[in-house]
């Protein structure tokens, strides 16, 4: 049994490379290449025919042309080498024009490949892309014509082609690949699998580079260098094949991801709808018995069922304020739930903030002998959801009144701040401790004080305020000092169109 390591000795490799440069080897190499390109072309063409998306169709079109031209190139090579091997076809006959044709075909293919892989970068700048493509083809054609003419003027074509012709084409190849790498460096972020594409083109670059060295250092005589460059085009093509395959596979993967996401969305939506229906039904179910409670309370308090003693009246008052609180809680939960479900968009309208001066909104202030003053221009028009901003104002001012002692004052002011406007509610109440600040806007959070709980707060007021402000893409600021008072300021941007979150 032969030792495995002996198969891959440098000697064996050398023999293989040498084999590749003989007509048999060349035939073998071109046959392998042909089969690879055939498979690739089939993949790309079938993908192209299946695609409906126009953008992708364009991208695939360039792939298609690139690989089909590679296919034609390698087919011609297979035919020629087959001809040399199996018929009397003498390669010398071809020597006059085949190398030129071959080189030109290779260059065109190279250009097409470069464009196919860099296409995603140029997709938006179609003009530039087409311009470059035409420019490149033009350069090649001119180059080809120059060579043809020089050939006509020369006697010894093989001498010429061996040196200047090769030199010229190698230079062109080098330039095209260098251009590809340059574009890749500039725009690599926009390309998927940029690593692989980069690597492929670098490897491809080795061919003209090696050829270059051969020409410069060894007068194109070094067999070693010529052998060395044999496998690289194939390796590069294989890498590009891998990228093409990946890109094609991407589509299947993306389609799968998309249907997964659609399923998830359907489930989420259903849950959300169920939640909304639940909240809606529950709030209705809760409100009905509450109606009975209130109505009978009223009847009792008005003596409809007989005279009441003091104790009975007191008890009824407590029942009444608690059922009021229950009612407010249900409303707040329903409001917050609707806001959070995100289904309620903003109803933007232009209105004057002076409408907030309606005493109905701060009726409790009079009972507590708290003065309410307004500082805003006689006309202060803003664009926002009127009902929601009113709610914000009502919540802020009822908090202010709640936490201020009798005889205190509440100040409401509006200001135009250029790109945004502000609404500020300040009180001379007991203030908010620093440690309470972070939890202020949490649901059901109420400052830990026995007093405030019996004052009928729901704990949701500020959560609702925060939610509304978020929907307007605004912000809220709290300034407070224990014993001195608090100031809640809301800032709303004037330009809501671009930024509004629905």
């Amino acid at each position: 049994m032969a030792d495995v390591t002996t198969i891959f000795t440098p000697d064996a490799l050398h023999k293989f490379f040498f084999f590749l440069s003989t007509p048999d080897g060349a035939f073998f190499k071109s046959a392998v290449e042909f089969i690879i390109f055939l498979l690739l072309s089939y993949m790309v063409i079938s993908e192209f025919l299946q695609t409906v998306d126009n953008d992708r169709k364009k991208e695939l079109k360039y792939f298609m042309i690139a690989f089909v031209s590679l296919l034609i190139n390698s087919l011609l090579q297979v035919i020629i080498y087959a001809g040399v091997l199996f018929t009397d076809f003498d390669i010398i006959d071809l020597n006059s024009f085949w190398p030129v044709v071959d080189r030109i075909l290779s260059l065109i293919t190279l250009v097409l490949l470069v464009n196919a892989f860099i296409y995603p970068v140029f997709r938006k700048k179609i003009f530039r892309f087409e311009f470059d493509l035409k420019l490149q083809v033009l350069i090649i054609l001119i180059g080809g014509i120059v060579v043809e003419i020089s050939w006509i003027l020369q006697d010894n074509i093989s001498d010429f082609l061996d040196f200047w012709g090769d030199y010229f084409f190698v230079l062109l190849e080098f330039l095209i690949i260098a251009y590809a790498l340059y574009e890749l460096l500039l725009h690599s972020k926009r390309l998927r699998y940029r690593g692989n594409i980069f690597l492929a083109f670098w490897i491809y670059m080795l061919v003209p580079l090696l050829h270059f060295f051969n020409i410069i250092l060894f007068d194109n005589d070094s067999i070693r260098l010529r052998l060395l460059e044999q496998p690289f085009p194939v390796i590069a093509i294989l890498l590009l094949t891998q990228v093409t395959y990946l890109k094609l596979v991407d589509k299947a993967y993306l389609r799968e991801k998309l249907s997964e996401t659609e399923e998830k969305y359907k489930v989420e939506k259903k849950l959300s709808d169920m939640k909304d229906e639940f909240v809606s039904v529950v709030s209705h179910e809760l409100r009905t018995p509450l109606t009975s409670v209130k109505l009978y309370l009223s009847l009792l308090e008005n003596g409809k069922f007989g005279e009441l003693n003091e104790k009975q009246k007191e008890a009824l008052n407590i029942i009444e304020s608690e059922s009021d609180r229950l009612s407010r809680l249900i409303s707040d939960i329903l409001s917050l739930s609707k806001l959070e479900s995100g289904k309620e968009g903003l109803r933007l309208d232009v209105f004057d903030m002076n409408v907030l001066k309606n005493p109905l909104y701060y009726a409790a202030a009079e009972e507590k002998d708290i003065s309410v003053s307004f500082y805003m221009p006689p006309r202060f028009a803003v664009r926002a959801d009127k009902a929601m901003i009113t709610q914000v104002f009502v919540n802020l001012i009822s908090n202010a009144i709640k936490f201020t002692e009798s005889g205190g004052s509440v100040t409401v002011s509006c200001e135009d701040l250029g790109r945004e406007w502000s609404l500020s509610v300040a009180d001379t109440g007991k203030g908010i401790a620093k440690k309470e600040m972070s939890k202020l806007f949490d649901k059901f959070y109420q400052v830990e004080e026995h007093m405030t709980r019996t004052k009928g707060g729901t704990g949701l007021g500020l959560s609702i305020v925060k939610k509304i402000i978020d929907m307007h893409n605004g912000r809220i600021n709290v300034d407070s000092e224990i014993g001195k008072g608090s100031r809640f300021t809301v800032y709303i941007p004037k330009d809501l169109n671009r930024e509004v979150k629905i």
Partner: protein
Amino acid sequence: MKKILIIEDDENIANAEKLILEGDYEVHVANEGDTGFEIAKKINPDLIILDLMLPNRGGYDVCYNIRQEENLKSTKILMVTALNQQVDKSKGVMVGTDAYLTKPFEAEDLLSNVSKLLNGQ
């Protein structure tokens, strides 16, 4: 005395409403949409207090049917509901409701709405 017809399926609420209103008005009660409609046709009330969530026939339908009746065309309709979305209100306006009351409401709210509909204008 002006006649009021209450169409409300919750007995407690219907009873409470009756007690609140019977001092100043002649009050009739129906617990169901179709029965309510029949009674309405018979007694020709000046105001109908209509609950939205009725069994068998929804409040909107009853409202619509009442409006189709010739001699009930001038009857005022006060709709009572726990749902207070904008959608419901405009729907109510479309079928011919004159006013809306949202649950839970105070006895005072009921009285003021009724007197506004029957006496004010």
